[in-house]
């Protein structure tokens, strides 16, 4: 039975240090200063139940969050304010995804349907109620009402758990507890193809870079690759010990797949070879490798990644440029993997060395259920379950600048954050959603 005292619920043991690896108690195997130096710049409040998914828009100006309270919210990163609340689902939302053009968001919900919402690009704050939408809306102008439902995709027979847009934005793939993956034609709003994918709930789907492959993973411990034009299975990658797999993501080159499973392990699969090339295990910060599975002896003081119950998605994150102030190509920067953990922290692994690179703790009071990575800037967002309804947005100002030069280190959009950013771990921008001024039309049954 694991010793729970090592995992402090309120994070008091490491509240003031955003960067855990600076803890001198860790062994010399960890670098003295981690290259990743994220600290929170604002906190967003508004959801009334746990947040299940976060995503930055492709243009990097908006953040979308989905929650078990049946709503999704769109926040502006420039001002930290809430722009839209997407209401209409009759069940909690498990995942949301932005379209590649940045105008639409699809949400996958427990009411067995998905909805495609229109979001004004760039975060315009206008919000009008729409009485009727979809095919019946006469539109003389070409713009859509922000926050309205454009398509309602029905067809799944159980909770829809995950969704993804194809890069050409003409298809949406969704996986559900009914063990199928459905591919939807967005402009018609109909199911293009149903794939009997797994023998357990499908937990994550992802498209590859040119939209010709869909990877799906499931609680049955298999990762399957599907050919989009024909719908046939091209390959199956079985996870060792059939551990239930909860998250799958293609690398930016689409040659590798990152899969995280409920034995607290993440694996990087090579798609062409069909085997694991890197494994990222929970690693005690003291440098000792924890053993897999139950019965782990915890020697107090070290923190360890844990993921055995909840489906938490992992992502790739780029480290900082080696030379400051000069843009560098992606190949010169180290790549990391970030995942939220059930001990209320975020863990970062270096992709190549497989070692733990940083732990970001003290900001959440409950299991970190969602992490999002900004497409261009070193910004992260994370959210947690019911006991902590705050969404935290972090910025990495670079290793040397965290204390002195807060203003220059802040991202372009968050000017307000620069004022308060003096290395404090506390949040400075809090947005309350006092009242919902507009009720968007309910999703048609």
């Amino acid at each position, binding site marked *: 039975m694991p010793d729970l005292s090592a995992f402090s619920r309120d994070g008091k043991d490491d509240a003031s240090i955003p960067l855990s690896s600076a803890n001198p108690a860790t062994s010399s195997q960890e670098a003295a200063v981690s290259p990743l130096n994220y600290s929170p710049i604002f906190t967003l409040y508004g959801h009334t139940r746990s947040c299940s998914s976060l995503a930055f828009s492709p243009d990097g100006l908006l953040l979308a969050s989905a929650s078990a309270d049946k709503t999704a919210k769109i926040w502006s990163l420039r001002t930290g304010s809430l722009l839209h609340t997407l209401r209409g689902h009759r069940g909690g939302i498990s995942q949301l995804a932005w379209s590649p053009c940045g105008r639409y968001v699809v949400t996958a919900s427990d009411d067995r349907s998905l909805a495609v919402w229109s979001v004004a690009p760039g975060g315009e704050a206008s919000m009008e109620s729409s009485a009727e939408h979809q095919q019946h809306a006469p539109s003389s102008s070409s713009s859509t009402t922000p926050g309205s439902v*454009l398509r309602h995709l029905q067809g799944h027979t159980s909770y829809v758990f995950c969704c993804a847009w194809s890069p*050409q934005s003409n298809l949406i793939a969704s996986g559900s507890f009914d063990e199928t993956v459905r591919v939807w034609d967005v402009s018609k709003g109909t199911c293009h193809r149903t794939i009997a994918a797994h023998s357990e709930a499908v937990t994550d789907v992802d498209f590859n870079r040119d939209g010709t*492959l869909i990877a799906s993973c499931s609680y049955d411990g298999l990762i399957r690759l599907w050919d989009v034009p024909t719908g046939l299975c091209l390959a199956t990658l079985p996870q060792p010990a059939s551990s239930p797999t909860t998250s799958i993501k293609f690398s930016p080159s689409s040659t590798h797949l990152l899969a995280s499973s409920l034995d607290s392990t993440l694996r*990087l699969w090579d798609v062409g070879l069909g085997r694991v090339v890197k494994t990222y295990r929970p690693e005690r910060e003291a440098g000792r490798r924890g053993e897999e599975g139950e019965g782990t002896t915890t020697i107090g003081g070290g923190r360890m990644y844990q993921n055995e119950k909840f489906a938490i998605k992992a992502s790739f994150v780029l480290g900082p440029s080696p030379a400051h102030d000069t843009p560098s190509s992606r190949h010169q920067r180290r790549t990391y993997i970030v995942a939220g953990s059930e001990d209320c922290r975020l863990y970062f692994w270096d992709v190549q060395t497989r070692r733990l690179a940083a732990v970001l703790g003290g900001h959440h009071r409950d299991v970190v259920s969602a992490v999002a990575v900004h497409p261009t800037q070193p910004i992260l967002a994370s959210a947690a379950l019911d006991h902590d309804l705050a969404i935290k947005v972090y910025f990495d100002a670079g290793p040397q600048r965290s204390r002195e030069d807060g203003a220059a280190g802040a991202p372009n959009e968050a000017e307000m954050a620069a004022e308060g950013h003096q290395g404090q771990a506390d949040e400075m921008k809090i947005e309350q959603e006092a009242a919902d001024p507009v009720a968007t039309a309910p999703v048609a049954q």
Partner: protein
Amino acid sequence: MNQSLLNPFATPAIPESVHQVLAPQTETACLCARFNPRGLFAGQYIAAARADCAVAIYDLETRSLVRFLEGHVRPVTSLDWSSTGRFLVSGSMDWNVVVWDLKKREGGARTRTIRFDAPVSQVTFAPGTSRVLLVVLESQQAIVVDLRRKKRRRMAIPSEASSGQAGPSKWQTMELKIDLAQRHAEESGEDDAGLPPITAALFHPSGAYIFAGTTRGEILAFSFQDSPSPSSSSATCRLIARSNISGSSAIREMALDRSGRSIVVNSNDRSIRVIAIEVPPLSPINKAPPSSPDAVVSISTVHRFQDLVNRTPWNGVGFSGDGEYIYAGAAHQAAHNVYIWDRGSGILDKILEGPREPLVDADWHPVRPLILSVNVSGSLNVWFTPNAENWSAYAPGFEELEENVEYEEGEDEFDLEDEEEERRRRENDEEEGGEIDLWTLVGAPAPARGVGGTIFDVERRVKGQGDRDGQKMEVDEEQGADEQWQYAWAEDEELDGEDFALHVVLQDFQSRDYRDADTT
């Protein structure tokens, strides 16, 4: 990118049957249809030139209409995609050529309109750029249009008080047009009537050569030298080779394969010829074609196909995506056939038979074994062979067997595996595994710029040195002093390195009546 996972032996290289028909909602004839041949999303979109004066773009996967480009006033006769798939150029019987920017929404998609003196029969982009076009008119001229150059015209002030002085001048964007025959006549000093009329033309993938077919059955090879720096005058074209290949019958159309080493030619004597082309390589420094007059371009006929029984004329010829097959649509009146020959041996491999309507044009998908053919009534038929389900993909140990096989146990069948050993071995593999590259895109379809680069790539390198749309102006010696040419560098819209995909626009299409084009 799924190519690496697809079994090359299981998927046939030639399509076998019609599977889908994309019919436009309104019955309108379609004159030309093209897949977008290059870029990351190659072959996912079909552009169709219609007789109702519009260009429709369909998505192959969902069989639905994604864009509808209106702007011409007469039927559109010819289309071409740019290398990134962002620009489309269309030529029409209304004597205009229009360049469309597909990144913009419906209304503002039309970027440039170029007027000519005759209806346009064929238009193509130069490889690697969207600012140079090759246009063939029905008056049998081939014209290279350079959209990068602007002409500045001085406007005289009406009052005579300041006679002799230049009035306020303003910039007019006018294209530089180079008529191939004229330019050749000027440069070689021959009589203008020295060259026979040109009916078809295309650029070599390097952009350094232009091949033109004439009414007398000849293929002319011009060397095209672009001049990226503002200090020299416009581009030069010189005829460097000439070869008669089809007797005296006019050449109707030509198509190049991806490597640029073969051309398939459709001529009026109802036969198709495959021509092998050899060009000297571009100089690696500035990618210019060799300027010595000894540079030889050799043109030789390799195969000749014709249907001796029915003497069918052909419409729409070309190569398959990998260049292994040659296809041609048969222009019968009462049948819809596509013939496929093997390129190496010249043997007829297959005849695809479709609905009983004459065929107007055909195109082969750049990556997949899929053919598109266009009816005279405007419906687009997509031919492919459905793949059989591969059961061994469902688990790594599965293997499909033709018949029952007696299972033989291996020596180590019941050995107990040492798990520690296994784990340690895996650890070692991971430790020794080298750096993994997660960012470089591999396995994508043909690169957008073509193998080896094109001559137009030079302008990106020289660009940093020249002035940016402002100060330098050169007087073109052919024009009078009132007009000056200025070379404007490619604007940002051209230099989109990204691979472009046509994103779905949801609300717009609901307000139109153009519903989806599929009938299945």
